[in-house]
């Protein structure tokens, strides 16, 4: 329960941006609280993305987005080893599949150079095939972007918030902000977990960012237009057919469908871009999933007949404009971080630094004193290409056989400073149930191990047969 203390900063929303912002302010010395309406972090837009670390080569030149992406990219590489966060260095190819695509590569290359991504390079169709022999042979060349990489989209934000909490921040779950008022320089927030007092509110509420502003400010500076993306994850056997991230030539609305390995050893195709009004439901659709599979097979014919391991869908918090919607209101002690569409995973750390600067410009009464010796937590590695817990002695036993998840990992995820709040949170922390069989073999044991610990539990009761 929140106490009567006054926080310097309340971060509303535990997506990747909220987690990064909470970390930044905590390390800068602010008394920070993160309020998340879900039972766990990453319950909204951040749970589903393509897990790429982007260079920003194709972002709008001069935009806040490209600045935050590139700052976020640099900081991720700088801090990842201390947090034990993985990196799969793949590079990406923007592949031209027809002559019109090929003509657009010139502009994309120019844009990349304008954005300071100088190591891009054109590849002939023969060079494309030499790099990716399983790719359909009928390409019209590609633009190679060596700096695009694959990361763990869930361990990274968990690391950010874990570091915040290890260094004194509070994280409160199932805490929807239902109202609030500002009195001079102090906000009194009402949440479903009780009142919270803070000197500053940072709106990182993602899909609900505009609703939060309507509730607390009376009007919103932007309107969220949820955009659904569906994904298909292929069996790990598919990973032998692909090294580089395959990007399409993008259009105005979306980066298009990406084919990439995941850090967990699978191959992923997606996302779609489907506008919808619903902010809660991100359903998958059989017809669309078939279309995605067909697209993947068209790019890499060897994927025909490859078993599907998982399917998922997520909502991107796009706004009515393409750009990020970040603004500070010194009067009302409010910073908005809205409209962070598909590049949030890359940009999060950069956005956090940007928000910290906006805050510094607000000229608060007291200056923050950055922590001198912050704690650096080390995350459990879930990346397939690095050592996993099952390869180390005394791991208890294997609970999830497909993903080789140990009992020690499951117990750690259910305890710790930021324990899993629901089944999906447990999956994201451990990968239990995310493999080929999708829980056929392990779900019963996971249900027993997690009994009484999760919202929407796997079991509804005891069986007395």
């Amino acid at each position, binding site marked *: 329960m929140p106490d009567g203390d006054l926080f310097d900063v309340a971060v509303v929303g535990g997506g990747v941006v909220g987690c990064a912002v909470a970390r930044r302010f905590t390390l800068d010395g602010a008394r920070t609280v993160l309020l998340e309406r879900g039972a766990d972090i990453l319950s909204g837009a951040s749970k589903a993305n393509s897990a790429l670390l982007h260079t920003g080569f194709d972002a709008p030149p001069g935009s806040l987005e490209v600045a935050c992406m590139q700052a976020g990219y640099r900081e991720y590489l700088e801090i990842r080893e201390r947090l034990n966060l993985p990196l799969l260095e793949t590079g990406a190819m923007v592949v031209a599949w027809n002559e019109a695509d090929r003509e657009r590569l010139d502009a994309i290359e120019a844009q990349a150079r304008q954005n300071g991504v100088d190591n891009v390079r054109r590849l002939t169709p023969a060079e494309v095939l030499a790099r990716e022999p399983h790719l359909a042979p009928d390409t019209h060349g590609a633009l190679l972007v060596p700096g695009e990489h694959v990361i763990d989209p869930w361990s990274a934000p968990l690391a950010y918030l874990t570091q915040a909490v290890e260094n004194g921040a509070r994280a409160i779950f199932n805490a929807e902000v239902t109202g609030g008022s500002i009195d001079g320089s102090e906000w009194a927030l009402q949440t479903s977990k009780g009142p919270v007092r803070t000197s500053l509110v940072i709106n990182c509420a993602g899909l609900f960012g505009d609703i939060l502003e309507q509730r607390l400010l009376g009007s919103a500076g932007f309107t969220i237009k949820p955009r659904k993306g569906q994904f298909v*994850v292929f*069996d*790990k*056997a598919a990973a*032998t057919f692909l090294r580089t991230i395959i990007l399409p030539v993008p259009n105005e609305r979306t980066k298009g469908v990406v084919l990439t390995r995941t850090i967990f050893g699978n191959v992923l195709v997606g996302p779609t871009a489907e506008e919808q009004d619903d902010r*809660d*439901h*991100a*359903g*998958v*659709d*059989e017809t669309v*999933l*078939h279309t995605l599979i067909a697209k993947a097979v068209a790019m890499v014919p060897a994927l025909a*007949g490859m*078993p*599907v*391991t*998982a*399917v*998922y*869908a997520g909502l991107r918090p796009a706004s009515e404009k393409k750009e990020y919607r970040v603004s500070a209101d010194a009067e009302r002690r409010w910073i908005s971080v809205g409209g962070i569409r598909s590049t949030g995973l890359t940009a999060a750390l950069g956005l956090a630094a940007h928000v910290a600067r906006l805050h510094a410009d607000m000229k608060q009464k007291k200056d923050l004193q950055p922590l001198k010796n912050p704690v650096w937590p080390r995350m459990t590695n879930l990346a397939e290409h690095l050592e996993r817990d*099952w*390869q*180390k*002695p*005394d*791991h*208890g*036993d*294997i609970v999830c*056989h*497909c993903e*080789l998840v140990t009992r020690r990992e499951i117990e750690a995820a259910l305890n710790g400073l930021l324990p899993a709040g*629901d*089944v999906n949170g447990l999956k994201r922390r451990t990968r239990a149930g995310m*493999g*080929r*069989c*999708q*829980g*056929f*073999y392990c*779900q*019963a*044991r996971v*249900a*027993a191990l997690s*009994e009484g610990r999760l*919202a*929407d*539990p*796997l*079991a*509804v*009761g*005891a*069986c*007395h*047969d």
Partner: protein
Amino acid sequence: MTETIATDVAIVGGGPAGIAAALALRSRGVQRVTILERETDVGGVPRHCGHPPFGMREFGRVLTGPAYARRLAEAARQAGVEIRTGLSVTALRPEARLDATTAAGPVEIAAGRVVLATGARESSRAARLISGDRPVGVITTGTLQHEVHIEKMLPFRCPVIVGTELVSLSAVATCRKAGIRPVAVVEAADRPTARRPLDLFPRLLGIPMHYRATIAEIRGRGRVEAIAIRLADGSMCEIACDGVLLTGRFTPEAALVRPSHLVLDDGSGGPVIDQFGRCSDPSYFAAGNLLRPIETAGWSYREGARIGAIIADDLAGTLPPCVTTTTIVGGANVKLVVPQRLSASGHTGSLDSLQIRVEAATTGPLVARDGSQVLWRRNGRLLPERRILIPLSALQGPRAAGGTIIIEAAGSGSG
């Protein structure tokens, strides 16, 4: 320091097929036979099938699944089979070398021969590409039975059951015993997949059956709240429920085979074998439901026993060399064919039959041909998921060795 287990024959998977192979090997005098089982007990899937009938042929009496599994485990122990539980094999290496892990850490296994007997599992919701939300409460029969019989927990109270295979009846029995009340059974076909009169079972229990009905969407935020189905007449129907039980649509548990050096058959989803159960690396054999989805425990047991005897021959040096002389492929309407190839010309001591499954119901004929030469032919009705056999002897008679045999079940379509 990594532990190394040296053994004559390592058997991956301690279900009916694996245990039967182990017993056959021991009875033929093979010294070290080691079962590698990742669960805490051997016995395989029957461990959590809390109902009869199991064990008629093996033990001469009708047993429940768990009782049958205990008898298998006891027989293996008495026969001097080494049993390592809690040991997960993580990779198959050439020449019968395995990587594995236990609670204590990594293990290497150096064997003379390996038997893969990892069984089969039901297809997941994801693999079925079912539309809708992805809430908690969508599981398969295997998970239900493990949860109910071993963990003593209830995954739901009023689920919709999808499918009418034999395992679906097992699911209904488990639900009934656990006090779970299924609210409907949904089947895409116009008839139950399982053989009559078993299809009457749910109806006898008063569970509404919907044939020619497909899942339009699963609904629910945290847990399943409803399932929308499209009925035979095209109309939609929403059924309130707190779970969806996906039954059947088995697929071999080939997780170790797929990334390995062994050749996998896309039709069966299991390893390619010859008539002796030999994989593309002749130090590897396979038996049981890994070969094809899906057979009974009794069938898998007999298959495992035969493979065990063949390996004993192989260790004694009496097996024909592993040189593919004939390839067998599935043609029209044939979903899978096992074995997929024949070594040498003989079949003495080999598996007896070619096992077939068809894609869609048809009224025959089932034909095996080599080019235009019909080697074997049978008229009659063919149904999906049903056992269909062709005697191997029929394929090897007077025809010249070599080439390709095609199995076809074109027939006159469903009805």
